[in-house]
């Protein structure tokens, strides 16, 4: 027996509202690849990735066909590479980046994440060497994604690392100037980075994770918009939140089915499902569209932060009900360049940098895919990162900064990336100086975890 209404609803979600499995991410430990000789490290990495990931794309395509649900991206996340290259004599991290890039091409994944370092409380020699190699690594490869954890609620904010990353971001953008600084679009600074996030650019295989697992990222802002649009305009917030929870439940169970099937075929454990409303530039696939469906004139209107807070929370609640293994970032992403209506809101002056920052205190990630003038001083970028890290540190949540100082472009112009990365209007940034503050050096101490006011 079957229920025709349910079948039509499912098909409609996929066909009309862009429901998809945004990413299947093979998360793999490389800790057994360490060697004194960097060439041996490279060879070990290559062999290990080929062993585990050679069938990832084929099996993902099979499952896509069986359920007729698109699996948009196939990716790999590895142990932070700062740890893997550190024991080799010359710490030639760029060599490892090139190995990772080649093997990613060989197994046909679109990105490989984990060119990363965790430095919230200080640098090791390897961490420093990796961070300094990021501009060259990202400008000489295509598929590498890099992330650096600069802060946590337990450790505070490593301001030396914040300052260093502001310069690294500018340099990475400069080296990829002919593509509007695309290198910086593959580089993210974190506070409280999750160990099992399947989404790029921040995916890496955390230290406490198992040998290998499959993490799934599911999306569907269009499905959520459609569910809200079906409600009468005058429903109360409880009803609105319930509608979001119900649809989040449906999306999550579907994602878990696909994740478990694929993990089974690959003969590896299923890790987590990350239900994140991740927009794409396609029509109807917009988080800003959800704000409109909720009754705001446009993203950026007063009330947007409250709408996002409720959306983020309801998505998590629906997801938690659907699966015992919800992880990663889980919530709503607000990347500017990847969301057609966010782009529109910025272009029309409805959504400012400062409002976006406020929104990041309740969204699931942070300042994401924001283009700023190429001439923005690195100290100002350090100030932006420090603010975002502080929001995450105090609120005990993940926050991130993926910002692109677009070389030779300024406010009013567009940075064009294409594909999922989309295009970004260059946003105005506060021009007051942050120099003296960000150059104090050292660590912003860990916050108190009581007296929560």
């Amino acid at each position, binding site marked *: 027996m079957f229920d025709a209404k349910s079948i039509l609803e499912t*098909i409609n979600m996929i066909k009309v509202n862009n429901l998809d499995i945004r990413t299947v991410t093979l998360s793999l430990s490389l800790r057994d690849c360490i060697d004194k000789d960097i060439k041996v490290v490279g060879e070990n990495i290559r062999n290990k990735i080929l062993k585990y990931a050679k069938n990832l794309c084929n099996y993902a395509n099979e499952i896509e066909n069986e359920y007729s649900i698109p699996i948009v991206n196939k990716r790999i996340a590895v142990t932070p590479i700062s740890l893997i290259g550190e024991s080799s004599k010359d710490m030639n991290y760029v060599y490892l980046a090139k190995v990772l890039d080649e093997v990613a091409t060989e197994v046909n994944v679109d990105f490989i994440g984990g060119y990363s370092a965790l430095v919230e409380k200080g640098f090791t020699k390897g961490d420093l060497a990796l961070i300094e190699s990021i501009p060259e690594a990202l400008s000489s490869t295509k598929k590498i994604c890099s992330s650096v954890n600069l802060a946590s609620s337990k450790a505070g904010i490593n301001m030396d690392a914040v300052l260093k990353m502001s310069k690294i971001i500018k340099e990475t953008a400069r080296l990829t100037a002919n593509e509007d600084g695309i290198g910086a679009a593959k580089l993210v600074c974190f506070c409280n980075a999750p160990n099992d996030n399947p989404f790029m650019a921040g995916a890496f295989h955390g230290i406490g994770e198992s040998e290998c697992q499959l993490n799934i990222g599911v999306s569907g802002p269009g499905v959520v918009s459609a569910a809200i649009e079906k409600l009468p305009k005058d429903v109360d917030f409880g009803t609105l939140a319930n509608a979001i929870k119900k649809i989040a439940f449906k999306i999550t169970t579907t994602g878990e089915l696909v994740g478990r099937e694929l993990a089974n075929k690959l003969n590896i454990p299923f890790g987590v499902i990350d239900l994140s409303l991740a927009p794409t530039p396609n029509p109807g696939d917009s988080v800003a569209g959800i704000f409109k469906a909720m009754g705001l004139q446009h993203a950026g209107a007063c009330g947007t932060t409250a709408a996002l807070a409720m959306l983020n929370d309801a998505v998590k609640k629906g997801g938690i009900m659907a699966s015992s293994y919800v992880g990663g970032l889980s919530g709503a992403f607000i990347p500017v360049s990847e969301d057609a209506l966010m782009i529109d809101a910025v272009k029309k002056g409805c959504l400012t940098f400062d409002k976006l920052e406020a929104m990041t205190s309740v969204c699931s990630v942070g300042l994401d895919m924001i283009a700023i003038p190429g001439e923005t001083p690195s100290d100002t970028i350090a100030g932006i990162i420090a603010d975002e890290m502080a929001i995450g540190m105090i609120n005990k949540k993940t926050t991130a900064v993926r910002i692109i100082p677009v070389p030779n472009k300024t406010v009013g112009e567009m940075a064009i990336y294409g594909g999922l990365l989309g295009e970004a209007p260059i946003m105005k940034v506060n021009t007051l100086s942050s120099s003296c503050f960000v150059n104090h050096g050292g660590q912003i101490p860990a916050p108190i975890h009581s007296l929560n006011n």
Partner: protein
Amino acid sequence: MENDKKIIVTVSGIDKTGIVAKITTKLAQYNVNIEDIKQSICQGYFVMFLLGCFENSNYSFKDIKSALLEVGNEMELEVWVQKRQIFDNMHKI
């Protein structure tokens, strides 16, 4: 898993003679047993849902799906062939 061999076929498009015949003939050729079927016409628009089981078929899911999509192409119909689990997972608590 019992459900692993069950498929839901959804066919929609402009109504014309022989849609059910062509789809079910193809299913019979591929030894897919029909366990349930619902069909209706709404403002000249044909919609059919069909639960099939290919437990005793020598053909794979992929073969069966391709064959049915081909019928869809020939008759200018939209045909979806999906394993049943996606509906069970999505709509049952």
